């Protein structure tokens, strides 16, 4: 969203991701800080950053599916779970290297997601969201009820650490660099996808699917693709999660986790990759604060018991979703864009 008078004069300029020198500088500075982060900050912060990087991959996938293609997806945690279980099984039973398991997890999750996206051929509107809820339940059922020797049942699966040429990613710092590289590749890829014809088709379908169909876009295939890509991102994020926690169990991937991811893209702003990253940052910080402060409150108000953290998180995140939908449905990114265009044209009003 540029102010009037600011416009690209060539296709190359229009397609550019980094548009100004200041943006390039900010990007370089951000990358430098990220690369140096393990040397600047202590253990707890690195653990949170790790979680943020993994969530960023998953939330960017959800942003493509929901923010760009307009398909409500309440199964992102199930898709993440499929990726995490794939990575866990490939790594622990077949001893594959993480260079293979991470992409394969993405593919497995993408296939699972595509299966549910396929219903798009018949269903329109948010009915499609209901199939993603079915995905969530079917994933749980499959893990808990298939023979324990297949998926570990309710015991979960222990995952060996990622290993490359004898180097084992066991410390949080080494995992941080692994997550940073994968997240960097995935986010750069997301910028590529949304600027391609697929990305433009997503936006067209989101804005009006009937009109998009008349313009020659295959609407059903586009919706199924949106699920495929969104689930691929979730699968890759799930694989990273498996390598970080080194243990996967079904209760790490519930409907609530899916809703947390939805909260991230709503807070950051629908239809913006950077918005998804901001959303991840804000929501994870809030969760971290609640997780830190919660137990202290629980001590002083004893009758609430230990569930106050979970309850408080639900109240605050649910409140945030509702608040943002009511007050600023376009998210923080939109606020920032308004601010940016107003200082660019200062002192004129428009």
């Amino acid at each position, binding site marked *: 969203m540029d102010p009037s008078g600011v416009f690209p004069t060539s296709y190359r300029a229009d397609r550019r991701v980094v548009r100004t020198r200041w943006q390039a500088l900010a990007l370089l500075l951000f990358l430098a800080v990220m690369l140096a982060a393990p040397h600047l900050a202590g253990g707890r912060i690195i653990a949170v950053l790790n979680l943020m990087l993994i969530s960023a991959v998953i939330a960017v996938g959800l942003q493509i599916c929901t923010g760009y293609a307009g398909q409500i997806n*309440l199964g992102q945690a199930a898709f993440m779970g499929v990726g995490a279980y794939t990575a866990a099984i490939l790594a622990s039973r077949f001893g594959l290297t993480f260079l293979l398991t991470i992409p394969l997890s993405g593919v497995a999750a993408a296939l699972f997601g595509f299966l549910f996206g396929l219903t798009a051929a018949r269903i329109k509107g948010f*009915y499609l969201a*209901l199939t993603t809820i079915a995905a969530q339940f079917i994933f749980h059922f499959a893990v808990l009820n298939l023979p324990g020797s297949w998926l570990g049942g309710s015991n979960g699966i222990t995952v060996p650490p990622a290993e490359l040429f004898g180097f084992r990613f066991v410390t949080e710092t080494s995992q941080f660099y692994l997550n940073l590289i994968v997240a960097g590749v995935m986010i750069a890829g997301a910028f590529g996808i949304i600027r391609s014809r697929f990305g433009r088709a997503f936006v067209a379908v989101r804005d009006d699917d009937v009109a998009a169909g008349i313009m020659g876009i295959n609407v059903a295939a586009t919706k199924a693709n949106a699920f495929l890509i969104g689930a691929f991102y979730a699968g890759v994020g799930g694989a990273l999660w498996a390598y970080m926690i080194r243990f996967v169990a079904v209760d790490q991937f519930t409907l609530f986790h899916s*809703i947390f991811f939805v909260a991230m893209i709503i807070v950051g702003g629908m239809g913006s990759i950077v918005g998804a990253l901001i959303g991840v940052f804000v929501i994870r910080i809030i969760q971290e604060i609640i997780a830190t402060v919660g137990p202290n409150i629980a001590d002083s108000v004893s009758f609430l018991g230990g569930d106050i953290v*979970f*309850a408080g998180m639900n109240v605050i995140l*649910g409140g945030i979703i509702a608040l943002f939908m009511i007050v600023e*449905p376009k998210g923080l990114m939109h606020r920032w864009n308004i601010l940016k265009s107003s200082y660019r044209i200062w002192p004129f009003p428009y």
Partner: protein
Amino acid sequence: MVYFINDVITGALIGLLYALVAMGFVVIYRASKVFNFAQGELVIIGGFIVWFTTLELGLNLWLSIPLSLVLAGVVGYLIERIFLTRLIGESVFSMVMVTIGLLILLRGVVLLLFGPAVRPFPIIFPLKPLFLGDMLIPMNLLIGGILTIVAAVGLSWFFNRTRSGLRMTAVAEDHVVASSMGISVKGSIAFAWILGAVLSTIGAMIFLSGKSLTFLASEIGFAALPVALLAGLESIGGLILAGIIIGVIQSLTTNYLDPYVGGSLGSVVPYVIMLAILLIRPTGLFGWRTIERV
């Protein structure tokens, strides 16, 4: 054979209970075009209200049940006033997203107010099952099933035959068109949420009567989802048939297939049916077929 018939009857009655909870979905959809993801949370809120008036305040059942229904209506109205009224004129997408937020918000509020403890739920319907020859039929489900059928017939008549019901149907078609015809979208949505909350409370009474109450009871909201979709989201009368179909299939799967697969196949079968319906006949058995214009 007797066992088989007994399973079919019990399944059909459980299906009618699902239909009652699904009626909450459908009523809200029929009067506002909003798909309420937080239906299960309305059920537990209803459950806690009944628990509060009956066991905490110690009121007589004849007094506490009407009071609970009124309180549930107030809660439904408040939810509508605080969250949904402000979104009239925004896209339906925003409203649906708000109900997703409500899903976790309401659950958190219930946990904060009442804690995670398991509570006894008052015995509202007689615990003694009805014996028919060798068959035994749970009394709460039987009374619940009759209530469901009465409610479905009544609401179906209201939405299809009365003037105010048809107004709400117009709101479900299109908010902008409805309000330009002089129909109050606000009033319609408020009515829908009050009715949705009241129906959920009745559902909670039947479901939980004589059992224990925790926030896990909200699972029934999602269990009712396949019933709503099989009937078609717009059809109230169709819920009875859809509920019976899903309930019977689930009961038979639980009793005859689960021993072989060694798991809770019965709990996932409704979702498989739901996926199949969405693929074969997305409008459900009795839903509206809409024609779209650009």
